[in-house]
């Protein structure tokens, strides 16, 4: 886990609405939330020395897509849990091959998120 006790989540999605919804869901767990709009900014967060426990990663984003961002993070040796969340069902194998831990189809629901958080033991 990141150094503090609070679970730190990075939301990576170019859609305002999606980020708003995820933020509201995660707020219920009192997690610390950061949002970025593309893969480039996600990478920069880690290059800046920030630590996260969980990344919610969209696929289709400008500048750098989610698969490439995932691959880059793994190449940097970043062990953060990455959950790919996209409406592109065909990208599952690509995402998992790039190093994502889980793959979910949009729209993410609160029960889906809760299940994921439990599976990673973030709700203890």
């Amino acid at each position, binding site marked *: 886990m990141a150094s503090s006790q609070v679970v730190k989540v990075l939301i990576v999605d170019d*859609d*305002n609405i999606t980020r708003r919804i995820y933020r509201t*869901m995660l707020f219920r767990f009192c997690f610390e939330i950061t949002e970025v709009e593309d893969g480039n900014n996600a990478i920069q967060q880690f290059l800046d020395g920030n630590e996260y426990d969980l990344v919610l990663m969209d696929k289709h984003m400008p500048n750098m897509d989610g698969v490439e961002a995932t691959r880059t993070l793994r190449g940097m040796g970043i062990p953060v849990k990455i959950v790919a969340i996209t*409406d592109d069902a065909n990208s599952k194998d690509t995402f998992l091959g790039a190093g994502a831990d889980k793959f979910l189809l949009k*729209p993410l629901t*609160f029960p889906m998120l809760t299940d994921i958080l439990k599976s990673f033991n973030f709700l203890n």
Partner: protein
Amino acid sequence: MDYVNLRRQAASLRKGLFDQGYLDEQFYQLEDLQDDASPNFVEEVVTLFFRDSARLMANIDQALDKCVKDFNKLDVYMQQLKGSCTSIGASRMKTECTAFRECCRDENIEGSHSLSILNLCMRSFQKIKREHSVLRQKLESYFQLLRQAGPVECATRPNK
């Protein structure tokens, strides 16, 4: 003011939105996220949707007006719009977005054929604009009724 009647009208309008296919299950998810900490969450998200979708649709309009045959670019815009529709449960709009993307993905875009695809895209886009306008109208009416009815209104799923 007859708050009971206003609530009844709001409930009826809401039911109609689901029955007529304007909204799907995802809208229930938004309603479930509304609580004391985020008492206006649904309206805020819907407002955000109409703001963002208007911007995306203006980009698409501009591209189509210029007879841009960069179908990849059009597809990217439309994918973003479809994503937003999915996020709030705008079901009919989402369906029309999918249809538009099918037009863009037509493999043969050489020469005069690309013009017919462009025309198909334009027609498809007109449908999206109509659905957008109707949904906006209905949701604005719905939230106005909710505001008039006061804070007691709770989202409940219609009986199946």
